[in-house]
């Protein structure tokens, strides 16, 4: 997995509550058996007009000023609904590496870390400020520094954020979860031996 350390990127606003994974990537695109190739169909139903090809001018992300964005700004309960990891795959494939929201659904939150993406929870007030700023200024960019746990606004002001130290460590190093766990394989084996003797005793 590619590590996440610092990210300087254009911010794109997605002003909605409860952005669910069905919206992030509709089910007709879950039939692929690969992890990549989902970027073009990210937010498909919102992003394109009826014909499924023409960009919907009413969808904010389609505006020229947000092209090349790598930071997504949204609101409460982002990523709720289906557990589909296709959602972070699609966001990643499109170019997003960091999502700022007031809250995230659990499964989606975990899925992000398994794909080198950083979801950051910020207070409602801070999110409101960012929404105002991003709309006021074309090319609005933020600097996310995971090591320092800060987001720097164009005016130089820093916003601090919280992250679980282990998740931080994993992202900074791009550690693969399975490899990490297998360092403790002896413990798994010991647990299984216990389980087995418990099952034997039960008979």
């Amino acid at each position, binding site marked *: 997995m590619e590590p996440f350390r610092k990210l300087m990127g254009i911010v794109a606003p997605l*002003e*909605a*509550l*409860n952005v*669910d994974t*069905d*919206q992030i990537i*509709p*089910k*007709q695109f*879950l*039939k*692929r*058996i*690969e*992890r990549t190739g989902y970027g073009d169909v990210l937010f498909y*139903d919102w992003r394109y007009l009826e014909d499924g090809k023409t960009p919907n001018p009413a969808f904010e992300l389609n505006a020229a000023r947000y092209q090349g964005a790598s930071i997504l700004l949204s*609101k*409460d*309960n982002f990523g*709720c*609904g*289906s*557990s*589909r*990891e296709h959602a*972070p795959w699609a966001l990643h494939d499109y170019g997003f590496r960091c999502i700022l929201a007031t*809250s995230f*659904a*659990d*499964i989606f939150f*975990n*899925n992000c870390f*398994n*794909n080198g993406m950083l979801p950051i929870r910020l207070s409602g007030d801070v999110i409101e400020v960012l929404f105002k700023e991003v709309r006021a200024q074309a090319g609005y960019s933020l600097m996310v520094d995971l090591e320092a746990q800060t987001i720097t606004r164009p005016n130089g002001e820093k916003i601090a954020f919280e992250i*679980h*130290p*282990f998740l931080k*460590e994993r992202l900074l190093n791009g550690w693969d*979860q*399975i490899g*990490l*766990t*297998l360092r*403790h*394989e002896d*413990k*798994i084996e010991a*647990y*299984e031996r216990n*389980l087995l003797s418990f*099952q034997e005793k*039960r*008979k």
Partner: protein
Amino acid sequence: MAKNIYEKIWDAHVVHEPAGEDPIVYIDRQYVHEVTSAQAFEGLRLAGRKVRHPEMTFATMDHNIPTTDRTKPIQDPMSKQQVETLKANCAEFGIACFDMFHPLNGIVHVIGPELGLTQPGMTIVCGDSHTSTHGALGALAFGIGTSEVEHVLATQTLLQKKSKTMEIRVNGVLPVGVTAKDLILAVIGKIGTAGGTGYVIEYTGEAIRALSMEGRMTVCNMTIEAGARAGVISPDARTLAYLKGRPHLPQGVSWDALSAQWMAWASDSGCRYDVMVELEARDVEPQVTWGTSPGMVTGVCGKTPVLAELKDDNARLAAEKALQYMGLEEGMPITLIGINKMFVGSCTNGRIEDLREAAKAAKGYTVNAAMDQAIIVPGSQQVKKQAEAEGLDKIFTAAGFEWREAGCSMCLAMNEDRLQPGDRCASTSNRNFEGRQGKGGRTHLVSPAMAVAAAICGHFVDIRTWEFK
């Protein structure tokens, strides 16, 4: 010290807590389906890893498969490829697979309990958010992403942070005509779609104890719609009665010993929770969702919201957007909402008891002429067989409902069963998100009897006033 069921299961499954890292938790069962597994198997192959315990892993096909004649080839080449990939992966890695021709095939969350694979005290995962369903049997069960599916396949463990616990106590008795579905919708309406985030919810109280196992599964199933990690109900005599005689129970242990072990997982009296929410069962009405999130719900006697009355800006924005998508006016009585499609089925309400309730309401009536389609899709092939043995299929077809093969079907519309833009559907499934049942489709979540009654009348009606024939 008195412990709740979550604490007991958690403590028994922590393999190791490396300093500064997430605890490694042992997983007793993993269920696998075709949509969220292909990339996990591919990952194993690329890394040269094996499945650590194929015998603890069970696969089914449910999301993509046709609910019409299965002897005909699958039309969509990508669905076909996904189904075939699962079959090949199971063969390669030695995993039992209830493929679409298997007599025990069905929706993963229906067949797990049905086959006795789901048992009290187990940790259960699946690459599917509605894995919370299995908590109804006193298991700790939750959905995971595909990377985690791969992690469990490779290690039989998962990295997990301990959740907080929430008790939702439902006092008293549910009124006649009010079901488990209405109860859980009311709970979501009360705590909100993110109200359970970070928590494992245990349901307790008289009204929960009085629910059948099917009803408990409905409640735990939709717990994910409240944002919770998992929903669980402590095992009791009803749980044991449900499990007795199921095929996949442990062998060589006496029933009494097994029962005692299972019952020991139940929450101790005097145990504690981080948060407690209380509901009075008598206050719950039959529920109908009006919006595009399960929390946008009201009683059947209620109305869609009046925007000016919503104080919170974000809530008003969301309601306005939802009403627009749903093509509804503000302040509109629910019973004036007309429908043209109906779907009874899914892992929420596709079990035998749900079909019995639906049949009771359907008996002696005819589907309204305004309806373009009304389909009934059993949750598993065994449910289908049982329903046919009871003659429920005859009641449905006589009334003009279509009777299908088992599968997820119109719950998420990955197969051919889907809404057209502008269609309005009374659905017993669990998600009313935009486009969930087909692009531009509008979903109203209800209980099985409410769905059937709406299909008969062409609009929503209060099932409490229904004349059962």
